[in-house]
């Protein structure tokens, strides 16, 4: 994972590849891990594979922590400050008055926030879910009372439909951009690059020290939670 990306074209050079950097590698790995883990979590719950379900859930938790930290310390297109916009800009984008080049557009930003929030709520409830006398429990189940755990378990069950709704909206939007706007979002999320007409400021490079910091905190926090959040002193 040292530097798998080939050298990007130098802006303005002759014979340069028109593709520009859009999404950094950690962001893409996180994204596609979400795409695999959400169905895997559903499958493991449907099939009562609770050991797997818990492991996937902790992994999802760690990835969410990473993505949030990366939203402050990652490359430009990963940072919340670069894409989360106010209502005026969102409206301007919807009505075609605000141009958009690379990265999350102002409406897509809402989708990012929405998906991260619902996944976080779902994982958060799952950490406390279950009943120790009846099968699997989330790693933080002993920290709450029986009634609270029971309520959170019920939440965890129905809230899956909310997660599914957000995923469906996300996929519909991707299909919409692909079909009606000839904008292939999937390829860019796979390759990390995009062919853009005209001059654009491409995304900056990953600062790997920041990646180490964010992933270290995320893994540490996930492992601590997986062990029931024991006292640190």
């Amino acid at each position, binding site marked *: 994972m040292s530097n798998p990306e080939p050298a990007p074209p130098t802006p303005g050079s002759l014979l340069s590849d028109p593709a520009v950097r859009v999404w950094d590698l950690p962001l893409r790995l996180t994204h596609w891990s979400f795409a695999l883990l959400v169905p*895997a979590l559903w499958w493991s719950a449907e*099939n009562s594979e609770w*050991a797997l379900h818990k*492991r996937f859930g902790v992994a999802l938790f760690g990835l969410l922590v990473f993505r949030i930290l990366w939203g402050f310390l990652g490359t430009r297109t990963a940072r919340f400050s670069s894409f989360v916009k106010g209502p005026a800009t969102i409206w301007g984008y919807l009505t075609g008055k605000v141009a958009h080049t690379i990265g999350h557009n102002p409406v897509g930003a809402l989708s990012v926030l929405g998906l991260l929030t619902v996944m976080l709520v779902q994982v958060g409830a799952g950490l406390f879910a279950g009943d120790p*006398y009846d099968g699997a429990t989330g790693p933080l189940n002993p920290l709450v009372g029986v009634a609270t755990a029971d309520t959170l378990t019920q939440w965890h069950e129905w809230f899956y439909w909310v997660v599914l709704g957000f995923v469906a909206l996300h996929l519909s939007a991707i299909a919409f951009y692909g079909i009606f706007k000839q904008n292939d979002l999937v390829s860019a999320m*796979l*390759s990390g*690059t995009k062919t853009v007409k005209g001059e654009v400021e491409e995304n900056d490079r990953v600062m790997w020290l920041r990646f180490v910091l964010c992933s270290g905190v995320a893994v540490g926090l996930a492992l601590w939670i997986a062990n029931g959040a024991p006292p640190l002193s």
Partner: protein
Amino acid sequence: MAYKQVSLGAAVAAFTFSLAACGGEAATEGASGAAATGPEPAVIEERQANFKAIGKSFKAIRTQLEGGSPDTAAIASAATDMNAYAMLLDDHFPEGTSVDEGYDTEALAAIWEKPDDFTDAKARLVEASAQMITLAEGGDVAAIGDQVGAVGGSCKNCHDNFRLDTD
């Protein structure tokens, strides 16, 4: 670009599989192991609903004990429910309704292979819940708290021996 897509896909897949592999616990064989031999007998859903009701009454008891001043009358009432549900279990396990028949159930074949042990396991819950009623009516909170261990132990005993382990 194709090369990068493949390598990214491989990296994500490797990450996911390493997650799946790092736990060490072998995944249990689920109900999908065998094809169902016929339409699912209604008793399977009935007994699952009954176990859910048992769980609910036990949760009600434990919730009372977590508060500062447990309502022993509420505990007695929940224990009475639990005891009644526990006695229904005798009619809930006709032959041919195990997970081995391919149904969506966690009932192991051991239920019918060791009928005496299963009878004892059921009796343990009936007795433990009956004792809980008596203690709750007596109002001794400490004794009720100890009895939670006995009731929970009877749950666990049966789950350990007769229920498919999916944990």
